């Protein structure tokens, strides 16, 4: 059932490999870009991964890279490699909607720092990817612009909120993409589409120019088909940014190097803690057996590479979901206040017959979708006078407790704790479209495992660990603040060992289905 895609198909090459070929002059940026645009033209009608594609501009950018290379300019290793950006990333002159009707037609006058850094690196922007409106959701079904389908099974969701990015990369409509993660929005869609997705340490990637959902939680990060690609993309966007006060100054860890080290396959001395509260013994309710089985197999693989595996309890993690659904909506209710129809985006009812308050209310009424309104109402209530302490205040205390659970699990670094914590990325494989749209609580449960690292601001990666019922399962690796390199190292080791055991990459099975005529 496995067929290796033709080497001539540029959309099947890893981004790092594309960079190497481009650098060596073996392929042109225009060819690489055109290959992806062709793929988008062929498949995006079904998948709807993209909200906006500007092929002309992409080809012009690629041609400029080729010309510069021909002229002998010094170019970086990513020059000419295409990339897709989640539509939450502000891009100068390129429509940016955050998946919302309220921003329809808005062309920002500036670039997000992550977009500017990718531009400076010479990458070619293919387009902007679909997402749950304002990143609120776990299935991309909350987009104002229609659902995105999972390339593994078009009747299923691609995860969310970065579902456009996950579908684009898994479907080979982009070699890699940026997502953003507030409560799991990179890791969960990566898991459900067989990708690697990393949520960086809070403050290690600039938030300047990411349309804010929950400021104290939002982080942009890479979504890629290999651990090494994810690390390379992360390094390209990361590091201190003076435009973001919460950005961490100083030296950040070397990630691609960690990924290469991990791929060497030796994890001797690495201590891995399995979080009991996230699918561990006695806490497995709601977790699919196939998911737990793949995670157990992955742990066995890691042990086989020399890692020590033990179970660790983080009791406060049980409270993460409740705390998250107070903190994130509270901040969102404030962050979304600027969408009032006054300065940009949609304005409804300004026909001279209505006063200011009515126009603002009507604009927001028609511009926001149901889930966004639900969270604005929830957050407004949680912050209101008299309830603040009971809700927002308590949730912040839970957040502190979760941070302490992480700290005690990781110990002081003198061998009394573990180096990384692991869990399933999400309790189930990709669910069918529409299955949870009328049950917000069930939808929120998709983020159960990813929320603790979001609340603690610590890094976490999702790496594929096999299939359950023919659908990908994600394995989550969490590390202490600014130890993102550990995530990459362990993930790369797991990836290499599983690929070797399997004899091919997990995503090749998706490609094989395509060549044998459609999804399984």
């Amino acid at each position: 059932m496995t067929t290796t895609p033709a080497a001539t198909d540029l959309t099947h090459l890893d981004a790092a490999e594309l960079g190497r070929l481009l650098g060596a002059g073996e392929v042109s940026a225009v060819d690489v870009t055109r290959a992806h645009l062709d793929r988008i033209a062929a498949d995006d009608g079904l998948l709807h991964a993209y909200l906006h594609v500007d092929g002309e501009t992409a080809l012009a950018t690629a041609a400029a890279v080729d010309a510069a290379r021909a002229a002998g300019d010094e170019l970086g290793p990513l020059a000419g490699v295409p990339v897709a950006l989640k539509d939450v990333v502000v891009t100068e002159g390129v429509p940016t909607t955050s998946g919302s009707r309220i921003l329809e037609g808005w062309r920002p006058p500036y670039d997000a720092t992550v977009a500017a850094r990718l531009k400076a690196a010479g990458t070619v922007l293919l387009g902007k990817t679909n997402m749950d409106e304002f990143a609120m959701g776990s299935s991309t079904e909350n987009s104002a612009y229609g659902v995105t389908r999972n390339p593994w099974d078009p009747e299923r969701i691609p995860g969310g909120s970065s579902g456009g990015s996950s579908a684009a990369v898994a479907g080979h409509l982009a070699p890699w993409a940026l997502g953003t993660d507030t409560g799991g929005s990179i890791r969960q869609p990566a898991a459900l589409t067989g990708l690697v997705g990393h949520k960086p340490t809070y403050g290690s990637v600039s938030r300047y120019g990411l349309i804010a959902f929950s400021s104290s939680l939002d982080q942009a990060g890479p979504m890629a088909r290999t651990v090494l690609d994810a690390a390379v993309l992360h390094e390209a966007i990361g590091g201190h940014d003076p435009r973001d006060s919460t950005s961490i100054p100083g030296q950040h860890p070397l990630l691609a190097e960690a990924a290469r080290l991990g791929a060497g396959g030796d994890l001797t001395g690495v201590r891995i803690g399995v979080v009991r509260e996230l699918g561990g013994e006695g806490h497995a309710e709601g977790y699919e057996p196939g998911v737990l089985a793949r995670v157990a197999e992955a742990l066995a693989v890691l042990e086989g590479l020399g890692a020590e595996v033990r179970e660790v309890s983080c009791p406060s993690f049980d409270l993460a979901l409740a705390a998250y659904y107070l903190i994130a909506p509270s901040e969102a209710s404030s962050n979304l206040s600027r969408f009032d129809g006054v300065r940009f985006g949609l304005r409804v009812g300004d026909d001279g017959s209505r006063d200011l308050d009515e126009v603002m209310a009507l604009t927001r009424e028609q511009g926001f979708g149901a889930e966004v309104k639900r969270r604005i109402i929830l957050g407004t209530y949680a912050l209101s006078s008299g309830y603040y302490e009971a809700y927002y205040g308590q949730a912040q205390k839970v957040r502190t407790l979760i941070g302490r659970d992480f700290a005690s699990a990781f110990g002081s670094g003198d061998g009394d704790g573990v180096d990384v914590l692991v869990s399933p990325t999400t309790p189930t494989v990709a669910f069918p479209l529409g299955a949870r749209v009328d049950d917000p609580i069930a939808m929120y449960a998709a983020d159960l495992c990813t929320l603790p690292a979001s609340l603690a601001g610590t890094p976490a990666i999702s790496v594929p660990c096999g299939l359950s019922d023919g659908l990908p399962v994600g394995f989550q690796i969490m590390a202490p603040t600014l130890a993102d390199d550990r995530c990459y190292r362990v993930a790369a080791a797991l990836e290499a060992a599983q690929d070797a055991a399997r004899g091919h990459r997990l995503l090749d099975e998706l490609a094989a289905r395509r060549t044998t005529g459609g999804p399984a």
Partner: protein
Amino acid sequence: MTTTTGDRLLDFDDVVSRYEPVIGLETHVELGTVTKMFCGCSTTFGAEPNTQTCPVCLGLPGSLPVANAAAIEATVQIGLALNCRIASWCRFARKNYFYPDIPKGFQTSQYDEPLCVSGYLDVVVDGETHRVEIERVHLEEDTGKNLHVGGSTGRIHGADHSLVDYNRAGIPLVEIVTRPVSGAGAKAPEVAKAYVTELREIIQALGVSDVRMEQGSLRCDVNTSIAPVGALEMGTRTETKNVNSLRSVERSVRYEIRRQAALLDEGVRIRQETRHFHEDTGSTSPGRSKEEATDYRYFPEPDLVPLAPDAAWVESLRLALPELPAARRARLIQEWGLSDTEMTWLLNAGALGVVAETVAAGASPAEARKWWLGELARRANESGTELTDLPITPAQVAELSGLVAEGRVNDKLARQVLDHVLAGEGGPTEVVEARGLAVLGESDELVAAVEAAIAGAPDVVAKVRAGKVQALGALVGQVMKTTKGQADAATVRRMLEERVVGQTG
């Protein structure tokens, strides 16, 4: 726009004999930083609308604030000058409400963790010191400015459409809040004015704002309540906005005291509300009702890291504070040998600064005061300008004073010189030379005038020689008349004595 008011007012003296006023002041000061509070945009006043904006101060999606270190430093300086404790750790907070002039849908401000707390400012009214306690000094950002086009009032109601200028949005704003000030009795309106006056001078001395009330870089909200003398609880307060001059601060308090007393006497409850002050009538009228109290849903601003001013840094700022107005006044009273009353005159005339500069330029304190409070004050009054706006510098006043002391001009000539200087003809020495206004020495011209006077009045000469020396005055007058006042009277008298009395002796 003239505002008519239907408010019934009681006599002020009657009211304050029966009610105790309590005032509170919230003062906003726009800092004179080069850039805005959270972005790099210019803060220059008066630019074309919306030319000093960027994604951050326009609140565009995705933009993030970065706090201006110079604004934080200026706020700490103000806090120190007001005897506040500087927080070792504090945060910004979001104040959430919808209005077109706040681009983000919230104002970045401070809530329960202000930068400076628990200070005080002593003000003197009629020789009596009143301590005004400062509750907090915090840092926030200014809003944009709405311009309501059409309609008669310039307010949003009745306007055809509204325009917003975001140049002001994001300019650093320091809010200084007093605790309720009670016990001032009939002096409450003057204490309020004295407080704002003193605050303005302190901020001027610190050099952190130009504190121009007419440009809105110092804005004042005045809270006023009254309660029957001896009552345990404070009355319901009103908050008066649009108080745009020092005089208005005093008048608005006075008006509210009289209005509230009339209502209370009739058994009507005071509504807690915002009122607008009207400069033309000195009255207040109700503004936005607070019946639908806005819940601002304050919470710590997650886009900014907490502020943690280093203790050593705060101490270095304290040591580097300039001499503050109160200390300066005390020193000058000593150095110039003034009475408190004389200092009050100087302050009321707004002349302390120019007098001090004139002294620094070499004039004696007495001469400097005499010029500024006398001739120059009169001329400012006549032309309806501020003393400090007269087209003459303290150095020129000192120069003129020097010419008098040297005897190069007399008082009468000096006044003429002043006219020409004010007319823009140059400095005093230049004017004296160009116009030939110097006192005549013992020139042939003067000798001739003296001898002509003696020759022309033999009867007076006889009287003097007979012992009536005071009769010489008539001859002095004659000489001064002949020389059109350009002679020095003492010199003339001496020359006359030599010629008339000297001959007999």
